[in-house]
């Protein structure tokens, strides 16, 4: 058996270059013997010696030299193959050895695998978010040449929206001037009530120029695309439907082409079905105020009315262009700006107009990039803490096994072999953690997509695909190397004699080890601090956003969206009467204490923006303050809880003359420090309405920012085709939902009620993105805190374990438990303090990068930093005291007896 080992050992010690020579020599010797024996055999059977020698060689083939060369090659191939197999074998042996070793210490193994799985899993999840949302090109052919065209205003008074979607008449002019554009298309939002089969349905739609979908490189999978002549009024009755709508509404019936669909009481024909996965970016993803529906179920040709072709007031069209190859957005701007200047001059020249040409990818991803990159950094920090922690745990294990290693070294095991064993262990742990992490990522990503705010762009594209899994795998290998590097480098580094003499406690006692422990604690604490401060700042921002004076109540207020079908309610009077009937019906429901109608809810955006000026003012709308116009029923202020500052609200007597209620800032802007009641304003140009009241400020679009000035007009001035019924309830608002729905159905079953929400939910929706970021960041910070505290605990426990006897002696000599605690706390808390200081400094610097995501909190917020410091200090003290207590309560004799 020992004999069999020899060639293997020889192979192992041979250098690769020398190996070939040795092999050749072996082959030569083997062949020499063969020839000798063959000659002897032949001579015995009567051959002459010289004939026999020739024959022996001849039996190797026509050319002896060729045969030898050939066999040398085969021999070398054999050795190479064997060497490789041995390498694989020894790796496998190492893996099995470490797996056995890990099984023997299940607590360490579980802790290591679970923390790694969490770290790697969360990292994979965030990587896939960043990858799919930020990095990957939008799913349109040649997206790098697609740009969004918008218009920006400048002038003497600041505009609430300096950047707007395009104006149709401007767009038509651009089309004639932009020679670097291959094509240009427009999109206008539309909402339709679908009637015909079943309950009326309120769906999102867009009207698009015939060339828009081809511009994006999209072709219908069924039916045909739009024809250019369908952009004319009267011929625009063709629609294409989305894949989701096709499947949901028509069960994926291939014979859907040619079927009639009734949209807002107009019969249209389905001419095409769009491919699965295709969608236009919904919401404001194509720029502020673009407000496209999400999802978009129906696409219909955009037939511009003559009025739209000439008016310059409506900036309501999302314009896209495809650049010619090689053209730049700057070139487009250079071609469009002269057109813009001409339009501005035609409007009197008080305002300036300029074009904005934004690459589509940038516009869509825009604001989402920064928060996601922040989350990526956060999860990266968590992974780093996990790695540092794990490296330390590995070293501790190694320390405990130093005796064993020293024996191995003394018995002749190479340093390389010990290093390989250490690496094998970290690979086994990392691979297990990586596999479990992948599973976590799979679930985590699904949960995250479900929880993601609706305005997170492209979230439907996010999935755990091969590319992300590959990134996760690479990360796993990196982690394995990082974690294993230190123990591997140290493996066999100690002289065996020292290790053996000291009974296996050298490195854990040495000065170097103490420094290393301090460094590990410091690094973990520093990164945890940064994460905790980040999470703290987000939390503080969130709390402050929620505490903003929003100007309405959320308790016991229900918002019911309604849309009146235009055929049944074609006129203002008919709509006005419909609202009156709805109000009366809903008010009669039990549990309802008040009900009102508004054209738009607070926080849901400003849909109607126009100039407002005093009776005596002259000039066009753009030279005067802009205001957001809202149409409300008299009861509205009381029902939604917006306090009236002065004057009165609308009442029935106001039907005879025009009246308005202003927001506080609107009143202040028009009549600074004067009583506005009784003054007259031109609302949208009409002369003139009497100001009868001033209402408190209301957040119109977001909680974070003040909106435009607000002008409230009575509902009867312009009863909207769709609006919201606001209901104040006696008890829990959810309870009356069904009653309200049935009340509306009693008035008219064809009125669509897309959704019923509490005002609390409306508020909650506007902070969804903030809550999402805060939730993830808090989760990562918590993970960091737990990992770091376990790390501190581990380090202290390890340090104490190596000094048990020393402490026993101290206590035998009269040291009290408190003295031991003080000793431990000093060792543990010094690096914690350093880490804390470094972390705070780093977080103040790094905070600059997230300032735009915060609300009324500065990156260096003392309260947050103090809080984080306190939390970390408490956790660190606990992590130190637990192992210390275990030692001090063990009893002196036990301590002294410990080996």
């Amino acid at each position, binding site marked *: 058996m020992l004999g*069999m080992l020899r060639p293997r050992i020889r192979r192992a010690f041979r250098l690769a270059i020398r190996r070939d020579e040795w092999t050749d020599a072996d082959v030569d010797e083997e062949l020499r*013997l063969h020839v000798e024996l063959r000659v002897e055999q032949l001579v015995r059977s009567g051959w002459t010696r010289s004939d026999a020698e020739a024959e022996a060689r001849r039996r190797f083939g026509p050319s002896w030299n060729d*045969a030898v060369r050939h066999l040398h090659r085969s021999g070398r191939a054999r050795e190479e193959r064997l060497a490789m197999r041995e390498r694989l074998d020894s790796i496998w042996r190492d893996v099995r050895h470490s797996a056995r070793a890990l099984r023997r210490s299940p607590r360490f193994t579980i802790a290591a695998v679970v923390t790694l799985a969490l770290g790697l899993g969360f990292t994979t999840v965030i990587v896939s978010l960043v990858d799919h949302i930020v990095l990957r090109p939008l799913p349109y052919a040649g997206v790098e040449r697609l740009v969004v065209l918008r218009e920006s205003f400048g002038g003497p008074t600041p505009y609430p929206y300096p950047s707007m979607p395009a104006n149709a008449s401007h767009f038509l002019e651009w089309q004639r001037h932009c020679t670097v554009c291959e094509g240009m298309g427009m999109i206008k939002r539309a909402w339709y009530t679908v009637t015909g089969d079943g309950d009326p349905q309120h769906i999102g739609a867009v009207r698009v120029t015939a060339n828009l979908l081809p511009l994006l490189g999209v072709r219908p999978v069924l039916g045909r695309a739009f024809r250019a002549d369908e952009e004319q009024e009267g011929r625009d009755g063709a629609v294409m439907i989305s894949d989701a709508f096709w499947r949901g509404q028509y069960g994926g019936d291939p014979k859907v082409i040619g079927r009639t669909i009734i949209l807002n009481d107009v019969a249209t024909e389905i001419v095409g079905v769009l491919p699965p996965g295709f969608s236009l970016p919904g919401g404001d993803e194509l720029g502020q105020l673009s407000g496209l529906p999400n999802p978009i179920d129906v696409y219909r040709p955009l037939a511009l009315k003559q009025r739209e072709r000439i008016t310059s007031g409506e900036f309501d069209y999302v314009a896209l262009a495809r650049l010619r190859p090689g053209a730049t957005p700057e070139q487009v701007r250079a071609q469009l700006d002269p057109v813009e200047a001409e339009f501005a001059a035609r409007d009197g020249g008080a305002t300036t107009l300029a074009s904005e040409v934004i690459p589509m990818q940038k516009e869509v991803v825009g604001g989402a990039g920064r928060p996601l990159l922040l989350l990526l950094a956060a999860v990266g920090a968590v992974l780093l803490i996990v790695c540092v922690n794990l490296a330390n745990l590995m070293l501790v294990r190694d320390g405990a096994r130093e005796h064993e290693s020293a024996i191995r070294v003394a018995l002749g095991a190479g340093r390389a072999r010990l290093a390989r064993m250490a690496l094998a262990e970290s690979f086994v742990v990392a691979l297990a953690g990586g596999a479990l992490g992948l599973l976590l990522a799979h679930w985590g990503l699904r949960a995250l997509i479900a929880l993601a705010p609706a305005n997170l762009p492209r979230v439907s594209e996010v999935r755990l695909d091969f590319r992300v899994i590959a990134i996760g795998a690479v990360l796993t290998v990196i982690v394995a190397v990082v974690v294993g590097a230190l123990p591997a480098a140290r493996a066999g580094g100690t002289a065996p004699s020292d290790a053996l003499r000291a009974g296996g406690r050298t490195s854990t006692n040495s000065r170097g080890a103490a420094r290393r422990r301090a460094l590990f604690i410091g690094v973990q604490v520093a990164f945890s601090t940064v994460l905790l401060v980040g999470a703290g700042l987000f939390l503080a921002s969130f709390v402050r956003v929620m505490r903003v004076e929003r100007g309405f109540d959320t308790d016991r207020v229900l918002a019911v969206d309604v849309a009146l079908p235009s055929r049944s309610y074609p006129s203002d009077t008919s709509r006005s009467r419909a609202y009156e009937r709805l109000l009366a019906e809903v008010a009669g429901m039990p549990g309802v204490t008040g009900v009102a109608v508004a054209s738009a809810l607070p926080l849901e955006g400003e849909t109607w923006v126009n100039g407002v000026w005093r009776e005596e003012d002259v000039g066009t709308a753009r030279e005067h303050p802009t205001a957001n116009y809202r149409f409300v029923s008299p009861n509205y202020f009381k029902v939604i809880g917006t306090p009236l500052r002065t004057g009165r609200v609308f009442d029935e007597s106001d039907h005879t003359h025009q009246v308005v209620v202003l927001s506080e800032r609107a009143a202040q802007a028009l009549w600074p420090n004067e009583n506005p009641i009784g003054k007259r304003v031109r609302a949208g140009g009409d002369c003139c309405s009497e100001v009868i009241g001033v209402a408190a400020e209301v957040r119109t679009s977001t909680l974070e920012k003040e909106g435009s000035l607000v002008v409230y007009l009575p509902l009867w001035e312009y009863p909207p085709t769709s609006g919201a019924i606001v209901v104040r309830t006696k008890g829990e608002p959810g309870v009356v939902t069904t009653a309200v729905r049935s009340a509306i159905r009693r008035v008219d079953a064809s009125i669509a009620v897309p959704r019923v929400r509490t005002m609390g939910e409306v508020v909650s929706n506007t902070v969804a993105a903030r809550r999402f970021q805060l939730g993830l960041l808090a989760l990562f910070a918590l993970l960091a805190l737990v990992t770091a505290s376990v790390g501190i605990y581990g380090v202290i426990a390890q340090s104490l374990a190596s000094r048990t006897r020393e402490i026993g002696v101290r206590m035998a000599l009269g040291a009290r438990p408190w003295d031991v605690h003080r000793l431990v706390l000093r060792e543990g808390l010094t690096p914690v303090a350093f880490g804390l200081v470094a972390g705070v400094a780093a977080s103040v610097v790094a905070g600059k990068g997230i300032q735009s995501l915060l609300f009324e909190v500065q990156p260096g917020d003392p309260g947050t930093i103090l809080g984080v410091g306190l939390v970390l200090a408490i956790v660190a003290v606990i992590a130190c005291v637990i192992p210390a207590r275990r030692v001090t309560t063990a009893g002196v004799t036990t301590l002294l007896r410990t080996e």
Partner: protein
Amino acid sequence: MTTHLAVVKGTLDVLVLKALAWGPMHGFEVAAWLEARSAGALALDDSGLYQALYRLEGKRLIAAEWGVTENNRRARYYRVTKAGRAHLASETKTWMRYAATVTGILSEPHPAT
């Protein structure tokens, strides 16, 4: 002298394994054993034999070590490994079935004309 039968491709490896199944041998002993068993009917090429030995060793179906012959000459001795034994058994079974089938078909008498 009878016409030599060319060794069917792949069978040399099995033959070598079979030879070594009797006990460790060096290269010449394997050659001599095969020549004796085939009574010279097989066209054995000594170069091919060593190729086979190296190939089998690379696959770890046989293992080699240096030893000495009875006459105290250094020789590389080969022996069958556990994997080699299993390989030999399965190859033998396959070969037997194959040969029996082919033999059965070929020994069918010609149809009467």
